[in-house]
């Protein structure tokens, strides 16, 4: 039972009371990881070090000196955060086998608080994508594809079809982390969020996905996509847990000059009883083309929920949001072109056998190391940065970015506390359908509702809200004001309580075909 509970109240208490030991908890998670291997959520499972960490945690509990709420808690980390001694691949041939000599600040902070690092989760190569389908280790499968809810509503209709074609994507690029939390293999996971990469898979996998304010959490050790937008993301089962993890990670890091100078005070979330003083903004531009009718319905139901509880709900306008995709494309690819320049095969990572000249070695290394998506972005980014194009593209995109950010400033300045929007246009689509479109088209469509928060550096959170007609999770997004995470999470928690999102009824039967065929079919509910 503890395995499925929230962090703050259930698991931590169980550990403290000795109802479960960190080692038992770790072993349960490790065996679950094995039995859900077909989800492809993990790239690396660090069994040995995890068990060692659990043992150390157990010693602390036995002495009655646990380090805090996170002590002994199994967690997973997206494979674009550096972890000392554990492979960090970014799901790319370029970094396959790369073992970093240092821990990302966020990883170090989790370890310092006793968390048990189970492994590294799957993603799109270098976090470029919105499906978790474009990594060198293959796509991540959404655990909800194997839920009773999905099977009952969707699968009977397509019984004749090959079952393989029915599984749905997790969204991305932090799909591995979202799937890991969703399938109970860990209690919390780190993702990264540049254009929605934490919130999008959180919505598709029915978990909480928090993108904190830019600068609140250190990026040191996060392999960058877009430095000016990247934020470490937090994926948990409930809003309270997100607050716990946030509290353990936030604050100034001398190794990241873009973090806030002030120290961050961890907080507990109050149980909101009165929302009447709250002003919720509904940005009309988020009624975007392609928004599914059921999500639209859910969105207005949520707005009514606030209205009925006494909150002020107002329609607001963020007029420049529609330019966000184009603007993001320029800024993102430009930074990608720059950030990827270091992968030349000299100091680390893949190096081609080509040795005719240094230049030919560079070219071959980068051709062999990066997939088409990464190479495409490098190419367009370099184009935008050319002397003759810089003014017309990069500078303009920066100006548009400022306009997008100013839209939010104006809206929040008008008295709105928090914005309520959908997180995704629809529920998760089957993999076979998803790959019909290329990565660029998909990313452009899928990031549309999440990206503006990155442009403006604002905190935003996905809260699982309900199930679609197909039995798949749908989430809504709350966008808060800079560094007002406490307010944002408090409202999210209130909302979470109202909607009572159902727990996944995971059925792991025939899908357990790869490594553990001998095992009895497991049913976790």
């Amino acid at each position, binding site marked *: 039972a503890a395995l499925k509970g929230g962090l703050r109240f259930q698991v931590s208490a169980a550990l403290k009371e000795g109802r479960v030991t960190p080692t038992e908890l770790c072993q349960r998670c490790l065996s679950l990881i094995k039995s859900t291997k077909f989800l492809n959520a993990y790239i690396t499972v660090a069994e040995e070090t995890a068990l060692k960490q659990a043992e150390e945690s157990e010693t602390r509990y036995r002495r009655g000196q646990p380090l805090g709420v996170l002590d002994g808690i199994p967690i997973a980390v997206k494979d674009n*955060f*550096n972890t000392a001694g554990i492979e*960090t691949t*970014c799901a790319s041939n370029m*970094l396959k086998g790369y073992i*970093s*000599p*240092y821990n*990302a600040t966020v990883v170090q902070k989790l370890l310092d608080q006793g968390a048990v690092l189970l492994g590294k989760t799957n993603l799109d190569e270098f976090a470029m994508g919105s499906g978790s389908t474009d990594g060198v280790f293959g796509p991540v499968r959404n655990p909800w594809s194997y839920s009773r809810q999905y099977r009952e509503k969707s699968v009977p209709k397509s019984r004749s079809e090959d079952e393989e074609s029915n599984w749905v994507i997790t969204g991305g690029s932090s799909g591995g982390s979202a799937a890991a939390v969703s399938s109970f293999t860990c209690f919390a996971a780190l993702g990264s969020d540049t254009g929605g990469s934490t919130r999008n898979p959180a919505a598709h996998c029915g978990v909480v996905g928090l993108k904190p304010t830019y600068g609140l959490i250190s*990026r*040191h*050790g*996060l*392999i*960058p996509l*877009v*430095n*000016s937008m990247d934020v470490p993301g937090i994926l948990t089962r409930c809003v309270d847990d997100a607050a716990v993890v946030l509290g353990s990670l936030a604050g100034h890091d*001398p*190794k*990241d*000059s*873009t973090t806030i100078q002030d120290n961050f005070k961890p907080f507990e979330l109050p149980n909101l009883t009165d929302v009447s003083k709250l002003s919720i903004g509904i940005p009309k531009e988020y009624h975007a083309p392609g928004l599914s009718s059921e999500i639209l319905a859910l969105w207005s139901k949520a707005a009514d929920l606030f209205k009925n509880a006494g909150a002020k709900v107002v329609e607001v306008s963020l007029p420049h949001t529609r330019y966000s995709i184009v603007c993001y494309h320029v800024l993102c690819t*430009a*930074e990608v*072109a*720059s950030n*990827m*320049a*270091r*992968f*030349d095969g*000299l*100091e*680390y990572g893949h190096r081609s056998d080509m040795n005719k000249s*240094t*230049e030919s070695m*560079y070219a071959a290394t980068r051709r062999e190391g990066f997939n088409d998506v990464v190479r495409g972005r490098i190419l367009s980014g*370099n184009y935008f*940065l*050319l*002397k003759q194009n*810089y003014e017309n593209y*990069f500078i303009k995109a920066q100006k548009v970015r400022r306009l997008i950010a100013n839209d939010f400033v104006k809206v929040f300045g008008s008295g709105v506390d928090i914005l309520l929007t959908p997180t995704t246009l629809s529920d998760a689509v089957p993999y076979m359908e998803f790959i019909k479109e290329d990565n660029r088209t998909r990313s452009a469509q899928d990031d549309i509702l999440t990206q503006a928060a990155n442009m403006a550096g604002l905190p935003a959170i996905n809260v699982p809200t309900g199930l679609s007609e197909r039995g798949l999770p749908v989430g809504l997004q709350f966008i808060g004001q800079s560094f007002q995470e406490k307010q944002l999470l408090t409202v999210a928690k209130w909302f979470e309580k109202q909607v009572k999102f159902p727990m996944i009824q995971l059925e792991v039967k025939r899908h357990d075909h790869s490594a553990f065929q001998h095992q009895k079919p497991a049913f976790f509910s």
Partner: protein
Amino acid sequence: AAARGCGGVWRRAWQRGAGGPAPVPRGQRAVACNARGGAVPAGKSGLAPWVPVVGLEIHAQISSNSKLFSGSQVQFAAAPNSLVSFFDASLPGTLPVLNRRCVEAAVMTGLALNCSINKRSLFDRKHYFYADLPAGYQITQQRVPIAVNGSLSYSLCIDNKMSQMVTKTVRIKQIQLEQDSGKSLHDDTRNQTLVDLNRAGVGLMEVVMEPDMCCGEEAAAAVRELQLILQTLGSSQAVMAAGQLRVDANVSVHHPGEHYGVRTEVKNINSLRFLAKAVDYEIQRQIEELENGGTILNETRAFDSKLGCTVPMRDKEGKQDYRFMPEPNLPPLILYDAKSLPANMNHQQVVNIDWIHERLPDLPSVKRAKLVERYGILPEHGFTLLNEDGLTEFFENVVKQTQMKPKKVIGWILNDLLSYLKQHSLTVKESPVSSFLLADLLNLLEKKEISSTAAKQVLAELWKGEGKTPFEIVKEKKLELIDQKELEQICQVVIDGQENEVIMMVLG
């Protein structure tokens, strides 16, 4: 414009070969720069005169314990790749953290060069692939550098006579903070390139001098003055041989009244002497090229110190587009002054321009003026004293320990001490004769115990460094001056002993 630059006009200073293609030995003849600022008289050829224009880009390695954006130590000639942090090797996920000391050094240098200090400056990425540039880009200050619009006054002598000096000014366009690259060592026989990243990420100040100079001598004099300033400030050790001061020269020539010509950039200059040579060679090469009907390419050339000429750099062929981009991992660099300094700011975390200004040491020009005033020496003596590391201190120590007038002491320092040291390639600190010994010797001279000729003899003995004092040498060699009476007595004794001869002489 007349106030700066020499405004001098050059002519081809050699005879062309008899129409044949045989190359004229370039750079052999010293190119006379007209430092007075007047026009050079028309040469024999009668061709239109040329105006050379020289601008400089100087990279000064900041003297600091650690690198510009990482905690790695800075040390010359350490074991290869022993001073490399994760950031220096550009490991994925690492971020730059600005070193405060480097910022202070740049502010100090900017103030000393009369620049306006930008209270808000920015960092940019400059992209190019090179083996010793691990990140694929260099962090620099392209858009808004830390200091702009300064000037540097320097002096040089005319016609090689120390007694005739002119002072000139070169405008400083900007000073920017940037990272140094690593070093590539090419092993051609094994077809390998070895990379040493010890230098990668060391802080540099790039000082950009406007094209206000017109010959190698001016360029060298300006750089020498800058070098002295940097060393006085301690912002850079500025030793060219150690690569702590690297000079690239931009050179072009044009006819008076016309637009500036196409310029070339000359790199690989590692001493002041070579700077003067390289610039003069390049000016002559361009004049010759143009007079032969050729064109000047906008290219990078390397100075070959063995051959004394410049040659095109092969790996710099083709135009590079550096694809500049703002560095997203560093917030704008904000500097404060007494007025703008917020009260609640931790003083350890801010750089206060006024605070630095108040603590600037005397710059070389002030030091020279003070020496001239205090000791009554000539202005050019001030230059010589400052030009040699430790010479001023040596001079002042001698003056303190002797009754001889400074005006006289300076002669001994400059003529005897300095020429001896130069002859033996010694620095002042390596001098076998200490200031104490020299003062001792000068005191003997001043008390008229020895003659000036004898003093030179004693000094010659002292150079041997045998540990004898001047007094001991004087005694040993019996070099004492003798007074009149004693001399008369000696003469009397001689005369008394040689009576016959005396009589013979008197009789004629």
